[in-house]
């Protein structure tokens, strides 16, 4: 690497040693792709897992595995302790008041479906409105679409501004006494926008509107405090915060969860069963039917430990530097236009290049070892809003380096050369 002045953002920058050290925890970052070092910039789709989480999962399988809750024997008690211990870690991680408010699910998608079915179906009727932002992931649209069909409630879209910010003025105007539920992501996976959730939640409380916050893209990037945010429901996935697939969390305020009917039925979520009468279990078990994702929950707990072991404040500011650097660097690519330039963003850049389809960009970048996502990012309404079929998205994590941004830019220059793009 060249030695360069660190102050000139448009020049090359050196990645801090602390980051290079962190990278060693992630075995996959040593991968070669097409004989080039992997440059993994698809963290928005799924983040990579550190050795520490893998080791925890392995140790669980090698020494402790058993079903939870129902056993008096040693392994079952150990598994239960690990599983419930992870719940406590997650509680602290999001600042929930009690583990009763921390429901394990299979991911963000199931978390939101749970709220839509258990809360939405029971509390919505014709004439009611569900406010959904125009930048939502399909996970926070489709379940509501299904519930709206069933209840006759109406979906009202909260518009977004040209820079990809939520239109807060429009939101204020949309608030009325028929609004029951508001759905917004904390961070947009297509635009990178960080939404002012605390302010939105305050507005919602004033109107008695229930907030359903999709935190999938937030939890891996900055600390969360659901009580400080003042939200009612908060959903996220393990695999977007360096934990395993197959597990996620629904945070819900105890008062709301307590009144809701279960989403799914089965073992463990009941106190007693006969064919005539069934009594539901207590929180959070009422919402955890059947054998839960035990190893995955324990792995997620290890991901929380891992994140807590790092200096998250440093990581956040490093990711900001990465974003700033990437934003600047991408300016050197002819015909490139960023989609999503809100003032508050995580380290993610979505963009289009005049005359080149994102799919072709993705393939050519892949040939250079650079993994980005191309397409609609499960956020078709965002694409419609900006009148584009798809974007290319480079989404970073704290283990990405300035050199990797250089590799991205170099690969993009090859694209524009091949496709003969000029400004």
């Amino acid at each position, binding site marked *: 690497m060249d030695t360069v002045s660190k102050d000139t953002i448009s020049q090359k920058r050196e990645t801090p040693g602390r980051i290079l050290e962190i990278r060693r925890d992630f075995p996959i970052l040593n991968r070669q792709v*097409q*004989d*080039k070092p992997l440059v993994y910039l698809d963290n928005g789709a799924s983040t990579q897992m550190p050795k520490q989480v893998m080791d925890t999962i392995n140790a669980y399988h090698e020494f402790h595995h058993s079903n939870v809750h129902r056993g008096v024997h040693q392994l079952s008690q150990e598994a239960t302790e690990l599983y419930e211990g992870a719940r406590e870690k997650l509680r602290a991680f999001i600042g929930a008041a009690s583990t009763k408010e921390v429901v394990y699910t299979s991911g963000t998608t199931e978390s939101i479906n749970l709220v839509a079915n258990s809360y939405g179906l029971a509390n919505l009727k014709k004439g009611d409105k569900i406010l959904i932002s125009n930048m939502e992931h399909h996970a926070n649209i489709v379940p509501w679409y299904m519930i709206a069909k069933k209840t006759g409630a109406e979906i009202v879209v909260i518009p977004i501004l040209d820079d990809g910010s939520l239109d807060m003025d429009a939101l204020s105007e949309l608030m009325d006494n028929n609004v029951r539920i508001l759905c917004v992501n904390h961070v947009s996976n297509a635009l990178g926008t960080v939404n002012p959730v605390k302010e939105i939640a305050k507005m919602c409380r004033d109107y008695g509107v229930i907030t359903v916050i999709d935190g999938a893209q937030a939890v891996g990037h900055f600390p969360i405090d659901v009580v400080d945010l003042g939200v009612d429901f908060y959903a996220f996935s393990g695999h977007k915060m360096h934990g395993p697939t197959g597990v996620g969390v629904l945070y819900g305020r105890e008062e709301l969860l307590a009144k809701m009917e279960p989403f799914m039925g089965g073992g463990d979520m009941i106190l007693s069963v006969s064919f005539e009468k069934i009594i539901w279990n207590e929180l959070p078990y009422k919402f955890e039917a059947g054998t839960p994702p035990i190893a995955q929950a324990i792995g997620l707990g290890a991901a929380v430990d891992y994140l807590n072991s790092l200096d998250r404040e440093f990581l956040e500011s490093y990711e900001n530097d990465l974003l700033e650097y990437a934003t600047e660097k991408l300016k050197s690519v002819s015909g490139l236009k960023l989609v999503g330039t809100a003032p508050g963003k995580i380290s993610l850049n979505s963009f289009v290049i005049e*005359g*080149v*389809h*994102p*799919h*072709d960009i993705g*393939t*050519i970048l892949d*040939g*250079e070892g650079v993994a980005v996502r*191309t*397409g*609609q990012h499960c956020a078709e309404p965002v*694409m419609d809003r900006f009148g584009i*079929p*798809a974007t290319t998205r480079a989404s970073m994590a704290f283990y990405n380096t300035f050199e990797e941004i250089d590799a991205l830019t170099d690969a993009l220059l*090859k694209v524009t*050369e*091949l*496709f*003969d793009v000029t400004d």
Partner: protein
Amino acid sequence: MLLTNRSKNLYQEVILDHNKNPRNYREIEHPSHFAKGNNPLCGDKLDVYLIIDDKNVVTDVSFVGDGCAISKASASIMTTLVKDKTIDEVNKLFEGFHDMATGKIEPDEDPKLRRLRAFSGVKDLPARVKCATLAWHTLDAALKNQEIISTE
């Protein structure tokens, strides 16, 4: 410019040219056959228009739509190839193209595939096979009078 072989192989001049200047890119007002193709994975959308005479010959063919270079070039080249062919000949061409794009046969094995050879590189890119075949699948659907298809 130092592109990897794979990309060079895929993005040949002929593909880049048809992408930039697609042939037969227009609507046909009264088509005898028509279908809409859709690749939800990448958002590619393609309408194929055909006029087939009573001898089962393609007398006119066109397309409009949005898509990546591979799918657009494939559609463009397809229109130039199927014009004036019989339905039987078109079906054979589709079959051959499909087999080539999925790596079942080499392009050299069939002289009719000569002008489609540029697409043989997609066989190494499972996610892109659908781009290359979308136009052909849509054509096939039009011939079978299915109005909407999607490749997944």
